[in-house]
């Protein structure tokens, strides 16, 4: 238990250091292209693109070091926007990066031990709570990045898919059989 905690905090510390390092290393003072790319990225800050956040990925794309199909949360629409912005060909997702339904982290407050590891992991400060007190996710701020799930030593964070409600319901694309004129 204790060793698990130590390992997790070590990981968190390393990740934090990487993030911090990245923030400095990739710090861009108003590179307009990077900002433009960052503007169309979904800001989930999940790292699935293998960069420590959206801005670093934007920086890598701008430098020509990264493909445009690395961001699953952006969906195909995101790739399309990047392709349009950069004037390149649309490129579908590979097998390793597949978009999933947008979801929300939920902390089981009865199991939470108040270790603060999730707070440290959350890239957008969407988890509220203090040491030794149970934590809770501020739903409106959660980007669904899943970064808080792994560090939790007692596995009390789960990702719940945001279902269709009246508030977020959309009209569907009309489907009709087109018939040729006879």
């Amino acid at each position, binding site marked *: 238990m204790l060793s698990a905690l130590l390992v997790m905090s070590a990981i968190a510390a390393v990740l934090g250091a990487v*993030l911090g390092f990245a923030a400095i290393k990739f710090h861009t003072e108003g590179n307009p292209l990077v900002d433009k790319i960052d503007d169309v990225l979904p800001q989930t800050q999940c790292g699935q693109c293998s960069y420590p956040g959206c801005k670093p990925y934007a920086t890598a794309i701008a430098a020509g070091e990264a493909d445009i199909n690395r961001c699953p949360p952006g969906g195909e629409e995101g790739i399309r926007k990047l392709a349009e912005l950069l004037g390149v060909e649309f490129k579908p997702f590979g097998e390793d990066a597949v978009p999933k339904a947008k979801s929300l982290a939920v902390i089981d407050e009865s199991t939470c031990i108040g270790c603060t590891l999730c707070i440290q992991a959350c890239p957008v400060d969407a988890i509220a709570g203090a040491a030794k007190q149970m934590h809770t996710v501020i739903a409106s701020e959660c980007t669904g990045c899943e970064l808080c799930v792994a560090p939790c030593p007692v596995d009390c964070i789960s990702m719940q898919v945001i279902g269709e409600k009246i508030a*977020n*319901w959309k009209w569907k694309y009309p489907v*009709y*059989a087109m018939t040729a004129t006879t």
Partner: protein
Amino acid sequence: MPVGNDNMRKLYHFHGGIHPPSNKTQSTRATIARAPLPAKLVIPLHQHAGETAKPVARVGERVLKGQLIGMPDGIVSSAVHASTSGTITAIDMQLIAHPSGLPNLCATLIPDGEEEWVPRKAIDYRDHSPAGLQHLLRMAGVVGLGGAAFPSDLKLSLDRHKITTLVLNGAECEPYITCDDMLMRERAAEIVQGAEMLRFMLDAEEVLIGIEDNKPEAIASMRAAVAAGGHRRMEVIAVPTVYPGGGAKQLIRVLTGIEVAAGVRSTDKGVQCFNVATAYTVHRAFAHGEPLLSRIVTITGNVLHPRNYEVLIGTPIAELVALGGALPDTDSYIMGGPMMGFPLPSVQVPLVKATNCIIASSKKIFPPPPPVMPCIRCTRCADVCPADLQPQDLFWFAQSREFGRAQAFNLFDCIECGACSYVCPSHIPLVQYYRFAKSEIHAREHDKQLADKARVRHDYREQRIEREKQEKADKLAAREKAAQAARLAGAQPLTAQQQAEQAELETSRAHIRELAQSAVEHADEGTTK
């Protein structure tokens, strides 16, 4: 039976329009009847544009007729009330009248048959400020009854704009619907008084009441009410019957000649528009202290007895259908008219403030549409579009998901009237494409807002981590420095107090060592025994 051109006023035309069969006479033969009290009411807490009202009644609570059960939550929101006295038996998710077929929060009310009212307070609107009156309307749950159910109080708070003309919309251009027609025939005096109240709140100069010339009885009755009430600068104007002449922009154009351009609001031009039924409700709210608890609804189409009923909000639509006597070959029910309405997910859903008409539908009245064929670019759709759009281009952009271009071609000026689909020789369900495109654009704008918020929070966090690291480093450096200073100072003799402190520290350390030692020994004992 159009009335002669007895208007004193020059009328204007809007672009396009169509003349579908009106099918209105069926439901205007009988007067408005009051629907009987149903055994159960299901009252949705989201009946208006904007935020869902917050439930303020408890399950098991006895409520009175007119009691607030949903508190407006947020700026764009409106109140919801108990339509009769009885017991709240549930506040939960129930199927509602929405094209999605998804459930939403509703309060279930079992009426006790007493119809016992909360205390009602009638007011003289002239004694109140417009802002105070707006608040009263919000708390009375008054929303636009013409279809969009937009909270009426918000249409009255226009601090920046000078409103010269209040347009009262009695056009009722959509086929089959006759609830406004019957209301104007039977309750004209109250509508006109409501219009006077709206004029007061807007500080408008003139009131123009536009009614399509296929409603001569309504026109006569409204004119009589205006004359009898001695209302000055208020005019009832017969406008030509052409669909969609009841669109706000279209009616404003016809009555005033003002062209409200793309993306511009009529209030920027000094005109505000309300539906006649909304004016009636405003009058009930002020002159009788009654919140919006019922409305007039047309039941028509494939029924034995088409008619208008005054129905309590929350009444299951099945009750209304039973009153109409739906014929056996009825296969679905449409809420709204045949042009802009939508099929109900179930006939059990409750009637809401926006329900103006229920049409029982059958293959006989609405035959299934012929197969869709490719667009032949005949531009007939553009000829009839009342918003002067190019529907064929919008269709092209929507179906190829080029939303940016659709927006650039003024997609959001489309009022979804369906005139284009009506004339399209290829039977393309054009409006469905526009709705799809609009909701995709809305969703994207919403996502973009969320992303921008997340970016700010992420940047802030990065900065905070950076700052904390810096602070830690600074602290460490400071401690190093202090230690060094202490080492240097070590050469000097300690003061008496420092010596005492050090000795105390030494004793406590020894004590801890002792305790630890004995703990180890005891542990050994434990294992050897």
